C-alpha cells in the first residue's frame, strides 16, 4: 500500500494503480478524456498532466531535508500524464499549482480549436465531458480566428451509432473499446495532425450487440445514438436508477423520462453486475412496451363478448367472485418471471391463504441465441430465480403439454395468467390453453392475443411504474424505483421528475403525459384480500419486502436502504458484505443529486400521510 501525496494530502494507493485512479478513488478528480478504468491508458489527450516528484536522497540513501526538517522533493522537469504514471511509495503529486492549471488551459484551447462548438445542435450537450471541462479547466476564450477544419458529419457507422468527425477529440476510447472489450476492431484513426479522424475499415460496419456503449464512452458528441437522435435535450429528462428487465443478468440502468414517456435507457455502473456496459437489445427493446400498446384500465368481458373498461373496485370484485365460483383444485395459475420478488411473495401468500390447492406453473422464456459470454444470458426474464426461490414448493412441476391436457380435460377450469402472453411464448399450445379454459383471467401490461380472449384483464404495472426488487441469475437481489407516474400513484415527494413534469399545470399541453390505471400485482392481491375480509396491511412495496425478508430465508435482514447502499445483495449473503469497489462514472447529466434519496424521502412522506 504505497502512500502518495497529492497537493500534500496523503493517500493510500494500491500497488499498480496509476496516480489518476488512486486520486479518483479518494475523491480527487484529475481531468481526463482518454482514460477509462476498463481499458488501456494511451495518454493521448494530455489533460491529466500533473507535476510529479520524489524526495531527494543523499548518496548514503537517507532523505535530504531542508532547514525545517521536511524532505526536499525533486520534481520532474516536465509534467507527466497521471493516467499512465504508476504510484510508488512517497510519490509527490502537485495538481492545484499554476504550472498544471496553465497546461490544462492550453490543452483545452487546443482541443477546442477544431471543435465546431455546435452545442445547440449536439445531442451530447448537457452531459458532455468537454463542456464540463471547458467550464472547469479552460480560460473560456479562444484566440483562434482562422477557419476551422471541416470533416465528414453524420457518418452512419452501424445500425445504432452515428459519427460526427468534426466533434471528435481523438481520445480513442471507441477504438480501444472495439478492440479490447468487444474484440471486434473495425475502427481506427486515419490521417495525421489536426486532420486525424476515425474511419471504419472498408467493407465493415460497427455492428455489434454491444455497439451502443460507445455513446456513453465518447466524452463528446461525436458518437450519438440513432434511436435517441434529437428526441429531447438531456436536461429536460429525469434519470431514474433502475434495473433492465431484458434478461436474467439484471444490468443496472438509468431510465430517461420526459412527459411520463421513456425516451432512452442507458447503463449505470455496477461493478458487481454489468460493470459499465449494457447490450443494445436491452436499450432498444426494453422501453417501447412501456410507452405503447398498454392496457390503461382493468377490462371485463361483457355478455356480448367485448372487453369494457371498469373501475378497479369492480374488477377486483369480479376477480374474487370468479375465484370463488370454482373449486380451488380447478384453478391453474401461470406465473411470469417478470414479476418482482414482492409480487411473487404476495402471490404466495394469496395462494396459501385462499386457494392452496391451485396448480401454479412458472413460465420460463429461454432464448439460446440471445446468450453470449459477455453479459447476455439465455433466460429472458429478469426474476425467474427470485420467483422460483419465493414460490418454492407452491410451484408444480408440469410441462406445457401436461398443463394444456389438464385444461382441455377440464381438470382446470379457471386459468389465471400473470404477466405473459401465452401465445407469444408457448405458440400453439398457449393458444389452446387460452381457448380451452372456461374462465381466463389475465394480469398483463400490454395488449396481446391472450388479453383479447380473456374474461377479465387486470392492468399490470411495468417495471418502470413500480418499486420492487429483481433477483438476477447469480441470485443478486437488486432494488429499483418507479420512473413513471400512474393514475393510481401520482407524483410524490422524492420521485425523480424533470422540471417540466414537476412544474407543469393541468392546462399545459405538454405536461404529465399518459397516466394509466395500472397496479403492481401485490397491490391488487392486497386489495382482493381486503374484499375477502382480511387486512394484509401492505401500503407500499417496502412493507411487502419487510414481510418477505422475515419469511423467506434467502432474503433475511435485507432492506431497500441496504440494497441501495451495497448495490444489490446476493441471496443469503447479507452478513458477508463484498469488498468495496470503486464504481467509476465517466460523465452524465449534472448536477445529479444523490440518487437514492428516493427511499428515505418516500418513507418520510408515507409517515407524514
Amino acid at each position, binding site marked *: 500500500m504505497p502512500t502518495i501525496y497529492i497537493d500534500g494530502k496523503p493517500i493510500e494507493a494500491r500497488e499498480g494503480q496509476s496516480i489518476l485512479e488512486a486520486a479518483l478513488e479518494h475523491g480527487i478528480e484529475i481531468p481526463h478524456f482518454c482514460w477509462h478504468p476498463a481499458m488501456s491508458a494511451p495518454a493521448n489527450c494530455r489533460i491529466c498532466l500533473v507535476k510529479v516528484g520524489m524526495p531527494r536522497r543523499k548518496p548514503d540513501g537517507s532523505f535530504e531535508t531542508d532547514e525545517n526538517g521536511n524532505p526536499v522533493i525533486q520534481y520532474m522537469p516536465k509534467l507527466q500524464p497521471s493516467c499512465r504514471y504508476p504510484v510508488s511509495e512517497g510519490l509527490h503529486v502537485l495538481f492545484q499549482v499554476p504550472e498544471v492549471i496553465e497546461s490544462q488551459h492550453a490543452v483545452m484551447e487546443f482541443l477546442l480549436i477544431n471543435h465546431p462548438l455546435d452545442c445547440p*445542435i449536439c445531442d451530447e450537450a448537457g452531459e458532455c465531458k468537454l463542456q464540463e471541462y471547458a467550464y472547469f479547466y479552460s480560460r473560456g476564450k479562444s484566440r483562434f480566428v482562422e477557419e476551422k477544419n471541416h470533416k465528414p458529419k453524420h457518418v452512419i457507422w452501424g445500425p445504432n451509432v452515428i459519427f460526427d468527425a468534426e466533434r471528435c477529440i481523438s481520445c480513442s476510447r471507441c477504438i480501444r473499446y472495439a478492440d479490447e472489450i468487444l474484440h471486434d476492431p473495425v475502427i481506427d484513426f486515419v490521417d495525421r495532425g489536426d486532420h486525424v479522424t476515425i474511419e471504419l475499415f472498408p467493407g465493415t460496419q460497427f455492428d455489434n450487440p454491444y455497439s451502443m456503449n460507445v455513446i456513453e464512452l465518447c466524452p463528446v458528441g461525436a458518437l450519438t445514438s440513432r434511436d435517441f437522435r434529437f428526441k429531447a435535450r438531456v436536461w429536460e429528462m429525469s434519470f431514474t436508477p433502475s434495473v433492465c428487465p431484458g434478461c436474467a443478468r439484471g444490468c443496472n440502468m438509468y431510465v430517461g423520462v420526459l412527459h411520463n414517456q421513456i425516451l432512452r435507457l442507458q447503463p449505470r455502473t455496477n461493478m458487481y453486475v454489468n460493470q459499465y456496459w449494457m447490450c443494445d437489445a436491452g436499450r432498444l427493446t426494453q422501453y417501447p412496451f412501456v410507452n405503447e400498446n398498454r392496457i390503461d384500465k382493468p377490462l371485463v368481458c361483457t355478455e356480448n363478448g367485448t372487453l369494457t373498461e371498469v373501475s378497479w373496485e369492480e374488477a377486483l370484485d369480479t376477480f374474487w367472485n370468479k375465484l370463488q365460483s370454482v373449486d380451488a383444485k380447478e384453478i391453474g395459475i401461470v406465473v411470469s418471471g417478470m414479476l418482482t420478488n414482492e409480487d411473487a411473495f404476495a402471490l404466495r401468500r394469496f395462494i396459501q391463504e385462499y386457494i392452496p390447492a391451485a396448480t401454479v406453473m412458472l413460465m420460463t422464456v429461454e432464448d439460446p441465441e440471445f446468450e453470449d459470454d459477455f453479459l447476455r444470458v439465455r433466460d429472458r426474464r429478469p426474476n425467474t430465480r427470485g420467483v422460483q426461490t419465493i414460490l418454492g414448493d407452491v410451484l408444480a412441476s408440469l410441462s406445457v403439454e401436461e398443463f394444456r391436457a389438464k385444461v382441455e380435460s377440464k381438470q382446470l377450469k379457471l386459468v389465471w395468467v400473470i404477466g405473459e402472453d401465452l401465445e407469444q411464448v408457448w405458440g400453439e399450445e398457449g393458444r389452446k390453453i387460452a381457448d380451452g379454459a372456461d374462465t381466463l383471467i389475465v394480469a398483463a401490461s400490454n395488449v396481446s392475443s391472450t388479453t383479447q380472449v380473456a374474461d377479465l384483464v387486470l392492468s399490470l404495472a411495468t417495471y418502470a411504474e413500480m418499486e420492487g426488487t429483481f433477483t438476477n441469475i447469480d441470485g443478486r437481489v437488486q432494488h429499483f424505483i418507479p420512473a413513471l407516474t400512474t393514475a393510481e400513484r401520482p407524483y410524490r415527494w422524492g420521485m425523480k421528475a424533470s*422540471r*417540466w413534469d414537476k412544474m407543469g399545470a393541468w392546462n399545459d399541453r405538454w405536461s404529465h403525459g399518459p397516466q394509466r390505471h395500472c397496479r403492481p400485482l401485490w397491490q391488487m392481491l392486497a386489495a382482493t384480500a381486503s374484499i375477502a375480509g382480511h387486512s394484509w396491511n401492505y401500503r407500499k412495496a417496502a412493507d411487502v419486502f419487510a414481510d418477505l425478508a422475515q419469511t423467506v430465508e434467502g432474503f433475511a435482514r435485507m432492506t431497500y436502504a441496504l440494497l441501495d447502499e451495497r448495490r444489490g445483495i446476493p441471496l443469503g449473503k447479507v452478513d458477508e458484505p463484498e469488498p468495496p469497489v470503486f464504481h467509476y462514472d465517466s460523465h452524465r447529466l449534472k448536477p445529479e443529486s444523490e440518487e437514492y434519496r428516493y427511499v428515505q424521502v418516500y418513507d418520510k412522506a408515507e409517515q407524514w400521510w
Partner: protein
Amino acid sequence: MTFWEKLYLPEIARGLGITFKMLIGPKMTIQYPEEKYHPGGYYRGRPVLVLDEDGERCVACGLCSRVCPPLAIEVRAGETDREKERYPVKFEINMLRCIFCGLCEEVCPEEAIVMSKDLEMVFENRESAILGKEKLLVPVAQLQDRLEYLRMHQYYEPPARAQDA
C-alpha cells in the same frame, strides 16, 4: 428651518406653479386606441422567432425553454438536411405564462428568438394564447431595430478569472 420654510406656503405655491405649467404645456400622454404607440428597439414585447431569407434560424436547442422562468416555451426538435441539422418541429409559447422578461432572447445562441414590438395581445380562450410556429415566425426585415439594439448592448462578457491575471 427659518420661519418661511416652517410655513410651507412658498413651497406649495412653487409646486402648484409646476402643476399649472404642465397643464398648459405640450401633452406627453398618448391617446392609445386612436393613436398607436411605436416604441424603439429597446421595447420587450411579444417574443417571436426570426425568419431568415433561407428559413428559420432556430435549431431547437431548448435553451430558451430551459431558462424560461414561468415555463412558457416548449420546443420539440427534428432532423433536416440543411447544414444545421436540427430544427424545431414544434415551438410553442404560452402567452398566458410569458412574463416578457427577455431571458429567452438573451440566452439564444443563434439570435433566433427576439422580443418584438408587438404589444397588442388579445386572446379569447386559453388555447388560442398558445402560439405555434406559424404565429411566431417573423421575417428578419421587421426585426432590424431590435437586432441592432441587441448588438449594441452585448449583455455578457466572460469575467476574467483570478488565475488568468
